């Protein structure tokens, strides 16, 4: 009896529910919100919360169930589960696209992060968005996001990945512009979508390239003969892609740049902070922006074929990491600082991918999801408490009023700065060590400097927000309060994760098992960089200690300066005025894009294409010109039409004469 029941609820049969439940939640809440707003009623919060939070949590439970089941398989066996084609999407000519879900070590990690962190943030949102008019709408969007994100990470083919890829872009658009009555927020949403679309275009081309290459070879018949977008099939035939691996990888990487906010397409992410803070935590820190990393990790077999592409990925990552970190130094908006730190951390992950340390990248992805979600939610808690204020110059001393937020935030900051024994320490260190060990000294140096900067700006944030003297008016100070328990609970939970999250990947040099890496080795294989690891233990320890001290020193420096000696930075800024302005204005990149691309394009379209080619060349000269020509002809011909009937008759007689002429002569 129980056994039969278990068969029905076996992971294989439940797998699709992981994806379907959030979609159901999104549909129900969306419809509910729509109907309620149509009839000017208030949507019930409890119902919305039940659906909106319950279904993601359920989804998380199922994921956990599947994880446990798969992990329970006998050792050595690949804990991979493929649901098989759930259905055939398109079949035409030499193209078959089957859609199915794929659970392997990598997607399991991602699913757990997405549903786990996602559920937590849903719960947090109940408190954070409690007073908002669009409560149901918000949860509907958030659930929809989960749906697409799960499709992205679970899809067994590039197509399904792309579906999720664009879908999360959509949700990001909707959620950034959630408070659409503020034009800047709506514009930020649009900007995010469009910049992402640019990357997506590259991604599409990359997909097409893979397909075109594979279909041009007469591949030996297999089970999925034309299913060229399937990861398994691509992997199976990856040898054929060898000659064109570099363009393919670069095109796909363009997509990753868009989604994961790397140079040159990072500009949307800071603006995306216009959305509600839990959204920033979930989408723009923990999950969606890591899609690019996931994608490259997923296609690792392709990237290793092209050292050039790997180099590009590593360099873009490293440059983005330090570039964003410098901007983070001067920002005054609490969320903007975190946004730039996200960009910077994503840069680290790309650096790891670029040097071939795929598992390190995913490791950092995971820990980053914990601590960055924590930081954002902490920031949200602060903003919530301050009634929407986001400028850190107006904070200060908040630890008195909101201890939970403050101390969990410090944990998060410590984690991101890479301080022992918090989560970030292990993951960041893995990246730096792999970079160094791979022989990329210059990249390592950049990463090393960046790590210091990270520690500095994060503790600047901590110092200015929670320590020192309050910088706000007395009345406002009175109103500051700790957040409701639903939010506090989530902060604490994430705080714990930020501490222990890294312990699953303690490297062997420290006597750990490096479980995380071994877990993922099923997907990534034994990477080249790991060979000869054993001899490097000593070097690894030395490097780690150096970088720990380096970060620690900056962390302490920053918290001291910004908590106690706030006038120092001002003086510094005055001394290096140009540099400060350059960084403070984010290197004028937005303005540059606007000047080079946006404005010329709009002007060209409006003044030249529409104004001249359409209106003048085609319409006025072409179409109306033809009309005028006809009118001219008409004038010539109607001259004969005098209106005097006798003359018509005369023409008639002349005609008769001419015809008779023909008869007679």
């Amino acid at each position, binding site marked *: 009896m129980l056994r039969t029941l278990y068969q029905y609820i076996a992971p294989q049969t439940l797998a699709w529910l992981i994806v379907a439940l959030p979609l159901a939640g999104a549909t129900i809440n969306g419809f509910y919100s*729509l109907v309620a*707003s*149509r009839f000017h009623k208030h949507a019930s919060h409890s119902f919305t919360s039940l659906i909106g939070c319950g279904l993601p949590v359920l989804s998380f439970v199922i994921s956990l169930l599947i994880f446990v089941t798969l992990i329970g398989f006998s050792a050595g066996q690949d804990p991979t589960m493929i649901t098989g084609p759930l*259905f*055939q*999407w*398109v*079949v*035409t*000519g*030499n*193209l078959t696209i089957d859609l199915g879900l794929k659970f392997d070590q990598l997607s399991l990690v991602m699913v757990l992060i997405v549903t786990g962190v996602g559920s937590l943030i849903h719960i947090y949102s109940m408190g954070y968005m409690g007073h908002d008019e669009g409560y149901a709408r918000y949860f509907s969007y958030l659930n929809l996001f989960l749906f697409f994100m799960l499709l992205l990470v679970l899809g067994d083919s590039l*197509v399904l990945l*792309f*579906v999720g*890829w*664009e*879908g999360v872009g*959509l949700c990001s*658009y909707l959620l950034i*512009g959630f408070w*659409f*009555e*503020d*034009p800047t927020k*709506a*514009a930020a*949403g*649009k900007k995010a*979508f*469009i910049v992402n*679309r*640019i990357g*997506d*275009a590259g991604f*599409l*081309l990359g997909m*097409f*390239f893979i*397909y*075109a290459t594979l*279909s041009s070879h007469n591949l030996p018949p297999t089970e999925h003969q034309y299913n060229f977008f399937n990861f398994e099939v691509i992997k199976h035939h990856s040898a054929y892609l060898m000659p064109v691996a570099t363009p393919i990888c670069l095109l796909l990487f363009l997509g990753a740049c868009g989604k994961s906010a790397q140079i040159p397409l990072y500009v949307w992410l800071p603006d995306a902070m216009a959305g509600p803070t839990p959204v920033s935590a979930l989408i723009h820190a923990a999950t969606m922006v890591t899609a690019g990393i996931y994608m490259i990790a997923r296609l690792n077999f392709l990237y290793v074929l092209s050292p050039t592409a790997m180099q590009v990925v590593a360099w873009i990552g490293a440059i983005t990491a330090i570039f964003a970190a410098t901007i983070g130094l001067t920002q005054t908006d609490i969320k903007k600082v975190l946004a730039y730190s996200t960009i910077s951390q994503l840069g680290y992950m790309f650096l790891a991918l670029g040097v071939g340390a795929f598992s390190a990248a995913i490791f950092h992805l995971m820990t980053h999801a914990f601590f960055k979600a924590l930081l954002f939610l902490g920031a949200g808690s602060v903003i919530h408490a301050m009634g929407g204020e986001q400028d850190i110059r107006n904070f200060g001393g908040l630890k008195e009023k909101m201890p939970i937020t403050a101390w969990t935030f410090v944990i998060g900051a410590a984690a991101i700065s890479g301080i022992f024994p918090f989560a970030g320490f292990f993951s960041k260190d893995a990246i730096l060590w792999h970079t160094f060990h791979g022989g990329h000294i210059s990249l390592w140096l950049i990463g090393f400097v960046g790590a210091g900067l990270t520690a500095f700006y994060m503790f600047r944030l901590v110092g200015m927000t929670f320590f020192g003297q309050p910088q706000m008016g007395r009345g406002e100070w009175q109103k500051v309060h700790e957040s409701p328990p639903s939010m506090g609970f989530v902060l604490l939970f994430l705080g714990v994760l930020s501490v222990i999250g890294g312990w699953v990947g303690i490297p062997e040099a420290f006597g750990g098992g490096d479980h995380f890496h071994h877990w993922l080795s099923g997907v990534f294989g034994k990477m080249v960089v790991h060979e000869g690891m054993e001899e490097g233990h000593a070097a690894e320890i030395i490097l780690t200690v150096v970088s720990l001290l380096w970060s620690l020193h900056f962390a302490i420096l920053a918290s001291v300066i910004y908590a106690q000696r706030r006038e120092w930075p001002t003086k510094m800024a005055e001394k290096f005025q140009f540099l400060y302005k350059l960084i403070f204005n984010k290197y004028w990149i937005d303005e540059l894009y606007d000047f080079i691309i946006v404005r010329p*394009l*709009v002007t*060209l*379209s*409006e003044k030249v*294409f*529409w104004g001249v*080619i*359409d209106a003048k060349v*085609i*319409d006025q000269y*072409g*179409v109306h010109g033809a*009309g005028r020509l006809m009118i001219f002809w008409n004038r010539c011909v109607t001259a004969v039409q005098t209106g005097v009937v006798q003359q018509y008759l005369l023409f008639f007689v002349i005609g008769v004469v001419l015809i008779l002429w023909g008869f007679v002569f």
Partner: protein
Amino acid sequence: MLIEWLQSHLLSLMVFLPTAGALFILLLPKNEAASIKATALGFTLFTLLTNIWAWWFFHGLADFELQETLTWIPAFNIYYRLGVDGVSFLLITLTNFLMPLVVLSSWREIRTKLKEYMFLMLILQTGMVGTFAALDLFLFYVFWEVMLIPMYFLIGVWGSGRKIMAAFKFILYTMIGSVLMLVAILYGYFKGGQSFNFVDWLTIPFGLKEQLWLFLAFGLAFAIKVPLFPFHTWLPDAHTEAPTAGSVILAGVLLKMGTYGFYRFAMPFFPEAVRYFSPYILTLAVVGIVYGSLVAMVQKDVKRLVAYSSVAHLGFVILGLFALNQKGVEGAVLQMINHGLSTGALFLLVGMIYERRHTRQISAYGGIAAKVPVYAFFFIFVTLSSIGLPGLNNFVGEFLVLLGAFETKGIFGIVAVLGVVLSAIYMLWMVERVFFGKLEHEENKKLQDLGLREVLILVPLCLAMIGIGVYPKPIMNKMHSSTEAFLKLTMRTDAKASAQLLTPSHQYMKNDARIIKN
């Protein structure tokens, strides 16, 4: 008995049911608005039902199905010959699907000359369905013209703004093309054994020069209709000034006549010419995609913006057709349907807000999402479909078209991908300016949200969008063999070889015609 008879005349039924409705409307008194509307709606629904009925009898084989042949004008060897393959059947279905919605959308918009309006609508449907179903070139031409006249009146009488100018521009542009097409039809008629039969034409041994000229003549007619890049300027005017229903039909069905013409006639008849011209046409298509998108971006009138977006979308269709592989062609066909649904829905939505505010200027709106959430939901939904969000219909078509184009025509596919980015830019920018931001205009504060009738119009469209986006297979299954046959014909290198390429039923049809002739 009757049922069987009807079953064997399903196509004729679909073509002439609307005509019957039109004649019936003529009998009704002028001031009986309610019964006129009900009759029109009833007959369009009836046609739709017939279409659904026909769906079961249409199997998607490699030949023409539901054929009917009758002698019409024996002296000139002209037959009343109907038949559909997968593509035309789907387009007919699209037409019949849109018509009831369109009639429903005119419920309140049309206040003057309702009787004439509904009459013309139904005649228009006859013309459209007939054009898709005709297999005799003469019959095709007749239906083609039947379709133009009602549209001319719809724009000219019930339009807005500079409607007369728009109507003239529409009809003159189209007539120039169709007259050239008539010349080409007559040339082929005399060249190839005096037959208007579609199948006979496939075996006419045209020389290269002839092919080029004839292709140009046919192609111009269709290119204007599509519209391909430099021939597109009638479209924004006609779309903008036409009444809502007119715009919907114009975008949803009439534009497809051009691409369908390429698919059915111009390309299979003149394969050499297709090879010769395809780089130029592909260039125009890609230019159309980019150019249309860029110009759409800077429009100030919502309808005009959507009209320019049609130029871009139809560029994709042409790109897919001329990619000359099955992915591209099927993507193109799917894109025709998708464009009909999405752009049709956009026009309907614009019409709904126009009914309330009597302006289409983007600047007259702003922030109305807060006031009309349901409307905003539908609009954004359709917008997303239009910009090709995965999971909705346009994505499937665009994906296949781009993939097909990339595979065989490399660079054109790459440039066309730009269209994906640009479409997001212009649509979302418009959505931002119309729906988001502060509600500033006084008039907008009194806006009414959608009523039940309007929701009923939009829901079937949205469901169709989701359906095609998620599970396009049932639709695509109908057209596999047709597109295969099309490719075989278009790729043939030798006119004589085409005789062998004809599928069995083509042969059957020929014999059939012979029998009737004797």
